[in-house]
């Protein structure tokens, strides 16, 4: 546990040591803020449905940018050789890194809280979907992060890590979308819709937090963390 904390702290501080982190946060807030106020003022809707509908597509690019450095940079710099010869277990390093990127994502999302507060102040929205939306955001974000973290362990090139993570996340995101579900054979529809990263998110976004949706996201997270453990072992065998 102490090791996870040590690695977590180092990685989390690492985000704020680089100006890129601040640029990310700014871009994220400006983008989401703009999308939000557009629907708010133009369509005159006092809810966050538009915001949460677009969020998976923002995460598609935003999260791989958060995770791309986690392993690739260590490989590039050669620091992996020190890290993996310290008395730490593989899974401690993975969880430390995963939780640090999670915390960074959470901070960013936290900074978007003025949006719902504004809505609560200006109108009387249904609180359920907003709270559900934020829970869903954290769960879905975790799944995107686990994918990105795993992909980062495959290469020493951060740009490659970014692109592959976007591609895999994109694949998992669109298989649950309506237009894909219409075009696949009927027997595949339940499977695709179950596997889609976004379908569970919209379920939760309706304000009903179903345990199946939570289990889905936790499974995706654990699956990619498991793959990540395998790539680390692969170095050794």
């Amino acid at each position: 546990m102490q090791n996870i904390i040590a690695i977590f702290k180092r990685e989390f501080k690492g985000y704020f040591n680089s100006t890129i982190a601040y640029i990310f946060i700014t871009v994220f807030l400006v983008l989401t803020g703009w999308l939000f106020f557009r629907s708010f003022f133009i369509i005159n809707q006092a809810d966050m449905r538009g915001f949460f509908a677009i969020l998976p597509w923002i995460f598609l690019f935003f999260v791989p940018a958060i995770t791309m450095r986690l392993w690739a940079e260590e490989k590039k710099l050669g620091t992996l050789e020190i890290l993996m010869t310290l008395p730490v277990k593989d899974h401690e390093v993975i969880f430390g890194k995963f939780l640090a990127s999670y915390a960074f994502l959470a901070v960013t999302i936290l900074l978007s809280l003025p949006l719902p507060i504004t809505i609560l102040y200006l109108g009387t929205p249904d609180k359920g979907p907003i709270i559900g939306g934020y829970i869903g955001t954290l769960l879905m974000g975790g799944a995107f992060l686990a994918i990105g973290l795993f992909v980062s362990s495959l290469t020493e090139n951060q740009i490659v890590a970014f692109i592959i993570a976007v591609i895999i996340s994109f694949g998992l995101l669109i298989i649950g979308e309506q237009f894909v579900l219409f075009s696949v054979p009927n027997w595949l529809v339940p499977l695709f819709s179950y596997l889609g990263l976004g379908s569970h998110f919209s379920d939760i976004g309706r304000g009903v937090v179903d345990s199946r949706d939570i289990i889905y996201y936790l499974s995706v997270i654990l699956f990619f963390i498991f793959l990540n453990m395998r790539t680390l072992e692969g170095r050794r065998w």
Partner: protein
Amino acid sequence: MIRVSNLTKRYGNNAAVDGISFGIRKGEIVGFLGPNGAGKTTTMRILTSFLAPDEGTAVIAGFDVIKEPLELRKRIGYLPENAPLYLDMGVLDYLNFIAEIRDIPAGERGMRIKKIADLCALNKVLKKNAYELSKGYRQRLCLAQALIHNPDILILDEPTAGLDPNQIIEIRELIKEIGREKTVILSSHILSEVSATCGRVLIINEGKIVASGTPEELSNRATGKEKIYINLKGQREAIETRLRSMSEIASFRVIEENGGELLKYEIESNGDTNLNEALFHMTVDNRWVLTELRKEKASLEDVFLQLTIGEK
């Protein structure tokens, strides 16, 4: 302290390390010497449990690299090739991070870091970021990282690569100082380096140990093939008939012929004989004029060249 047997690591069809076996006693400073691509780094990576061997075993301080890597890692300090560092981290932050993972209690960390910073002469740069450091300081910081938990065993991959001569001497002194109470393995291409710091040398080539011994033993071994250079005035056929008849001589060749009169020969001896005396008597007996006689004792460098390139 370190027991390695039949260690093998392949990359594709290429064996980077090819059935290496050796033992190292507590307190020894051992040098891995070998040309680029010899397998020094790969061997060290296996010893530090960064890589797993395809075959063979390595046991360090009683712990097997495959079965008990965590216990093993606690007892080793490792300086990888090129001294990798988190460039965006502060020096003090970095040492704190390593100390934390190395399980040094929070109350002792400050003291420990201070001690290590003194030992590695890092005090001037403690407040800087790693990317601001010169190569020499990066090397020291990485060495400090390897020493902070006071390990019994140090594995240093090219600890002086890329340093200026002053820094090389300082780091060597530091290694010798540390080596008084620890077991040290270091690697290098530089012969003078291993002979200056190490009690024993393993010469590695193409994944195999081709020679081992103290620096003196290795250069003595090569004296069996000592070379003598002579400059003579005399008749060529007569000289060469005489040289051929001497049993002490393994081979000879003319390296320069000056106007038919002055001849320069390179002569290789057969073994531990007193060849220069025999040559001197030969010239006197035949009334040839000897203008120069120079003996060249094989250096560690020759051993190295013979073993690593000469074989091809």
